[in-house]
């Protein structure tokens, strides 16, 4: 008697105990569901360990963050220099600059800002709106937008400044628009002043003068995406109603807003999916329990999954909600396997209890194995350093693992408690059975099996070629999450076309020595960086403190553009900096450009989009520049004596009579591949401290060359110091080494830097994850069946599935990003499920004594039937995303998954049995076994 059978018998005997246990755990998770949250935390989308993200986080309070909303105010007729249009720009500015969202606006459903286009959309919209009204809380109260008032820029905002010279030579920077212009003379004067102002013309006012931009940055910690979305949409509506303008709104925070606005549709889709699945299950199986078992199991499974998320405090991103849904679909699929198998056994044995035990025993190994491999695949996405994906990986791994309990055990339990089915014969849909019969006879013949393998090999080759086209990161200029004709994407396209500036890239020129970045050579570096970055055809412009200095110089020389030239000497820089700083009457206006500590200057480059290829091109350009253009200084090391611990103090007291120990310093430089190289350093403390720290004597030029050479050759990523004292009993690791008088270009913030970091991380996670998933699956299967043949067969199946997933993505033009990565990983996991079931069935049939072709054919007609049931149920179940969902992402994902499940089902039903059929005897492993178990 096998272990599986023994367990099944025990399980049947102690059914009450198991029932109680499952009930208790389910109640626990149901209780934990109250902590569940559905929202997106921006920082969760970023790989926190990436150097770009570190730079981003280090400077986001100084130079602003990537949460920028952009409003374009477009004059319906003529240019913006009309009193009503200027008034509209001014009102748009003050609306974005206001930090409170009114309570009555918060009471409005987010969905009410969606404007349906077609009749179907209108129906969906009304239903979603009704759902949202049902779920809405009574009195939400006012909310904060989290706007950073210094990071608002607009023609009429106080941050837009004009430079003027008074008759006595004083430089002043009055606001560009102190009072709204009314008369034609005032308007044309404003036009001339704008044209003269390079930080406004082409940046805040379009070159064709028909539109103006209002930009605002929002502090992450205080940002409520749904509130901000309501606020901006309300502003847009009211401006368009009262002024002769059109208003376009774009920017990352609004994208989240749109996703929230569409989230209620998910409920509709879920409902439809449920109804259709029930109908299909009924059509296939014609049994009450065939519907009850899968659905009850799925329900408990959802409770466990959501409860787990609530328990650990994970928030669910609306976009990846499709993942839990998929896992639930997997649960249903496993359940159908069991139901079908039970029906088969019941037909054979005629006894409910026996049939239950028998089918349970038969499916225990393949079921657990399939779930385990799913789990491994999902756990690999937890390797990602992007918190959202990491958490999702953990959650879905648990969720998938819980299928073992919530479906496999619970199904069996329910069946044990339920009365025996009245009809002994199972219902077999005739058409399906006919098709499978054809497949079985095809496989039974050597030539037929051979042709199946050849066809699949061709498909795999084609998929492999197609899969090379998968892009990492958004492949379209507008967001692929929404349809191209969505208001968000239309606004983004409009702004890109008119201004070319939606996304920005922030580079910080930094030095440890205050004032160093103001030196002429540092400004030269910044000027060249800007020129190189702007030469990129995707770049729309750039601005830095140097531009303000140049502008000051130009203003000082009667507006002569030749004087907008970089300063040559430190004295000149100091003079213009002095003039500029003293001419700004309001605090904070220069904050986006320079830090008060004089250690850094910000360089911003603007882009029209964050398409994967343009981000890659921009960052490659930046890295190339940063690698070859540097201002190195001599290296210095900051040595901060750590506070001694109790033991050390005691030791120090003991050793007081001895001379104080000189820390021994070891410096190791690491290149980007992690190769270490130790650098010779002189040890000794230099007491002339620069900023209250002890500065170790500078490295001589020879050592400096070592580092320079290392940097040049291998892009030195980090320098580590080990300070050893007391002959090595105290070690302190240090990585605070800096170029004492050099300037480094810290990279990179802004939406481009952030997106670029996420892309790099996803690319790495994706490759690592794929390798780990395949290897782990291979190992698990090998250990379970103790057969290399089965492992290879299933590995092959997994490979085809992975290729099919990637090829599908490439053909649909869906890029790998934060949102698609988990789904792709799951798609790969699905590949193995069906194959495990079918190969296990073949092995069992062989053990029962059937010849290999006959065993394969039989597995196709029995297990193959269950596979066809589930696959078709799931495919039909998710088809509703495509017409209903306003999120293009969801629609595309369901299409992708439909392709995947079809390919996988076909692979399991046709390819695996054909391969088994064709295996030579000595390689057949368990498929070749003749003994009866």
């Amino acid at each position, binding site marked *: 008697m096998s272990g599986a059978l023994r367990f099944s018998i025990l399980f049947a005997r102690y059914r009450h105990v198991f029932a109680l246990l499952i009930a208790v755990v389910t109640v626990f998770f149901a209780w934990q569901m109250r902590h569940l949250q559905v929202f997106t935390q921006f920082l969760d989308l970023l790989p926190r360990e990436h150097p770009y993200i570190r730079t981003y986080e280090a400077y986001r309070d100084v130079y602003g963050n990537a949460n920028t909303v952009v409003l374009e105010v477009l004059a319906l007729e003529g240019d913006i220099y009309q009193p009503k249009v200027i008034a509209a720009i001014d009102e748009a500015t003050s609306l974005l600059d206001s930090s409170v969202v009114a309570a009555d606006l918060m009471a409005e459903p987010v969905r009410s800002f969606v404007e349906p286009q077609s009749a179907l959309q209108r129906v969906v919209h009304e239903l979603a709106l009704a759902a949202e009204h049902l779920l809405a809380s009574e009195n939400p109260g006012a909310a904060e937008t989290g706007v950073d008032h210094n990071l608002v820029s607009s023609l009429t905002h106080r941050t837009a400044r004009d430079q003027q010279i008074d008759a*006595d030579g004083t430089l002043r920077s009055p606001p560009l628009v102190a009072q709204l212009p009314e008369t034609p003379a005032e308007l044309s004067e404003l036009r001339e002043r704008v044209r003269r102002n390079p930080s406004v013309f082409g940046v805040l006012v379009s070159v064709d003068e028909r539109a103006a931009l209002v930009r605002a940055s929002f502090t992450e910690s205080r940002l409520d995406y749904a509130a901000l979305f309501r606020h901006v949409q309300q502003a847009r509506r009211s401006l368009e109603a009262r002024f002769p303008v059109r208003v376009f709104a774009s920017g990352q925070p609004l994208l989240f807003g749109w996703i929230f606005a569409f989230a209620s549709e998910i409920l509709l889709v879920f409902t439809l999916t449920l109804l259709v699945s029930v109908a299909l299950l009924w059509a296939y199986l014609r049994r009450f329990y065939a519907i009850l078992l899968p659905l009850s199991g799925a329900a408990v499974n959802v409770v466990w999954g959501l409860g787990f998320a609530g328990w650990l405090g994970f928030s669910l991103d609306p976009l990846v909600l499709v993942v839990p849904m998929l896992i639930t679909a997997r649960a249903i699929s496993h359940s159908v396997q069991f139901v079908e198998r039970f029906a088969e056994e019941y037909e054979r044995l005629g006894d409910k209890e026996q049939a239950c035990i028998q089918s349970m025993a038969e499916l225990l190994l393949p079921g657990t194995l399939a779930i385990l491999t799913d789990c491994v695949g999902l756990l690999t996405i937890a390797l990602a350093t992007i918190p959202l994906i990491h958490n999702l990986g953990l959650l879905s791994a648990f969720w998938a693992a819980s299928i073992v309990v919530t479906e496999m055990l619970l199904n069996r339990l329910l069946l044990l408690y339920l009365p025996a089915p009245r009809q002994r014969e199972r219902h077999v849909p005739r058409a399906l059975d006919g098709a499978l019969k054809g497949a079985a006879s095809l496989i039974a013949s050597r030539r037929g099996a051979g042709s199946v393998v050849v066809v699949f090999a061709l498909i795999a080759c084609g998929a492999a070629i197609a899969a090379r086209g998968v892009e990492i990161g958004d492949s379209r200029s507008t967001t692929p999450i929404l349809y191209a004709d969505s208001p968000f994407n239309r606004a983004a396209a409009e702004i890109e076309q008119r201004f070319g500036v939606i996304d920005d890239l922030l580079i910080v020129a930094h030095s440890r020595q205050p004032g160093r970045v103001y030196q002429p050579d540092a400004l030269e*570096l910044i000027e060249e960086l800007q020129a190189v970055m702007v030469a990129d055809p995707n770049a729309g412009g750039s601005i830095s403190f140097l531009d303000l200095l140049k502008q000051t110089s130009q203003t000082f020389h009667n507006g002569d553009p030749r004087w907008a030239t970089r300063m040559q000497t430190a004295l000149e820089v100091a003079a213009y900096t*002095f003039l500029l700083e003293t001419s700004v009457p309001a605090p904070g206006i220069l904050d986006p450009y320079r830090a008060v500590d004089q250690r850094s200057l910000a360089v911003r480059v603007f882009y029209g989009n964050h398409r994967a290829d343009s981000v890659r091109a921009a960052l490659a350009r930046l890295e190339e520049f940063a690698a070859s253009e540097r201002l190195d200084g001599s290296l210095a090391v900051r040595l901060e004596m750590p506070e001694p611990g109790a033991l050390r103090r005691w030791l120090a007291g003991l050793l007081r009579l001895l001379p104080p120990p000189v820390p021994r310093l070891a410096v190791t430089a690491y290149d980007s591949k992690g190769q270490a190289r130790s650098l010779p350093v002189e040890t000794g403390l230099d007491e002339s401290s620069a900023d209250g720290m002890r500065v170790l004597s500078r490295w001589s030029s020879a050592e400096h060359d070592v580092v320079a050479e290392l940097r040049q050759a291998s892009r030195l990523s980090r320098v580590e110091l080990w300070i050893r004292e007391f002959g090595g009993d105290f070690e302190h690791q240090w990585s605070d080494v800096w170029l004492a008088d050099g300037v480094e270009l810290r990279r990179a913030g802004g939406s481009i830097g952030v997106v670029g970091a996420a892309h790099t991380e996803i690319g790495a996670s994706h490759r690592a994850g794929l390798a780990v998933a395949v290897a782990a699956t291979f190992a698990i299967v090998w250990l379970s069946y103790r057969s290399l043949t089965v492992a290879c067969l299933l590995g092959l199946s997994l490979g085809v599935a992975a290729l099919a997933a990637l090829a599908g993505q490439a053909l649909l033009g869906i890029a790998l990003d934060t949102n698609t990565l988990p789904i792709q990983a799951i798609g790969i996991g699905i590949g193995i499920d069906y194959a495990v079931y079918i190969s296990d069935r073949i092995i069992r049939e062989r053990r029962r004594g059937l010849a290999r072709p006959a065993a394969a054919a039989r597995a196709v007609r029995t297990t193959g039937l269950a596979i066809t049931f589930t696959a078709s149920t799931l495919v039909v179940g998710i088809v509703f995303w495509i017409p209903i969902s306003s999120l293009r992402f969801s629609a595309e994902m369901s299409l992708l998954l439909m392709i995947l499940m079809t390919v996988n089902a076909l692979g399991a039903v046709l390819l695996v049995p054909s391969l088994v059929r064709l295996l030579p005897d000595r390689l057949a492993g368990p498929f070749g076994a003749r003994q009866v178990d």
Partner: protein
Amino acid sequence: MLDRFICGFALAWLALTPVAAASPEPDLPARIERLARDYPSLLETRETGGVIGVRSFDEDLFGELLDRIRAGAWNSGIDNACRVVFAVFSEEQGIVAAEGRQLLHEVVAAAIASEQIAVLEGLTHVLVAIMDDAISQYSVLAQELLSEKLRCAAISLGNRSLLEAIQTRVDPEREFSGAAPRPPVQGRWPLHRHANLYDIAARGDQVAAVGAFGTVLVSNDAGGSWSPARTGSDATLFAVTHGPGEELWAVGQAGSILHSTNAGASFAASVSPFDRHLFGVFAMGSGSALMVGDYGLQLRAKDGGRSWSCIPRGEDVILGRLVRAGDDAFGVGEFGTLERWPAEGGAPTPGRVLAEPRDPYLFDVWFEPAGRVGLAVGLAGTLLRTVDAGQSWRRVELAFDGNLYAVGGAGQLVVIAGEGGFLAVSRDQGTHFERVASEMPALPLMAVAFSDPVRGYVVGAGGLILKTDDGARSFHAVHPPARR
């Protein structure tokens, strides 16, 4: 305004640099005693609260002193007199301090007029002492006089040792030593494509445009194709001109000079003895050129820039473009500067602006080939016209009050260009203008050049080069290359 600018510098200098270690003349009382012996009644001092100030000053006696300096005299008595006068005047405020400033200018002018190395060396020591006294209010002025006037005189006298002595004193010290100068970015990054362009020269089919990042764009097919010249320099170039034959000059930022003898195929880079910007260049033939620029800088280069002569100038004024007027050169600049430089050499003769309440700031000038009729453009829609070879100028009314940066033409045709993409054309040598409708963005247009009455070019920001093939009836962009 320039004074304010200098004050700004001074304030910034005081605010942002640590106070120098040098102390004010330690032995001032002794020096005053000696002055009383050498030149009694030149300066009587008073002392209030430990500060020595001016009680009376004998201007006539000082005038005599200046005459002696002008005649080539310099001795320890004169040296002492200068030191005391400026030390005491610098303690004063307001009008007296301003007078001291004027006196300092006069002493320098007298010393330069002497054309004696000994005098210049002596004065250099006095000025260095004032410059090093960071508390003196004349410190910055002394540095500028050294840097501008004395350096200029030293160059003209061809005295290298004095030139170097001054140069080492006035070159601002690099605060962060060890920073090696960065190699030119040109060649590593293609920045010339969209660099701002500031000037263009056209002759026949040969066209050359210059601008930021050391950009020189050369076309040998009348703007059909452009190739960037490898100039080996990143300095912004502000002016370009053709010389006789294949000669081509370009000058710009911080005294950068490029000279080509093969129509721009290759350039020899050099730097003028001054690190001031050069805004105008006029080729005199056989490797000589006249160059003008910031702070009234006037230089003559010989042998393609290997030797120099400096023409001293009375007032600090930004000098702009130089163009051909008949056989002579003609230049414009700040404060209504309109000057004819005779072909045979010598000092320029100024023109007058008639019936104009203030001195306009002029950016560019153009003359018809005979050099009689000319037009000058400048700040805030300023448009001046001369019919007497630049001796007198009268305003031409124009319905545009933005800055006009450029004027150019051929025969009866004149085109002016300026701020916000402004372009206007006249077909009667500048009496009447009408705007040229243009689809171009509102970028500043910096220079106009015509090779004949049909073909002409306009350059502007972002690498923009506009061309007309129909006598300024229409313009189309021939540069920069399309981005996408």
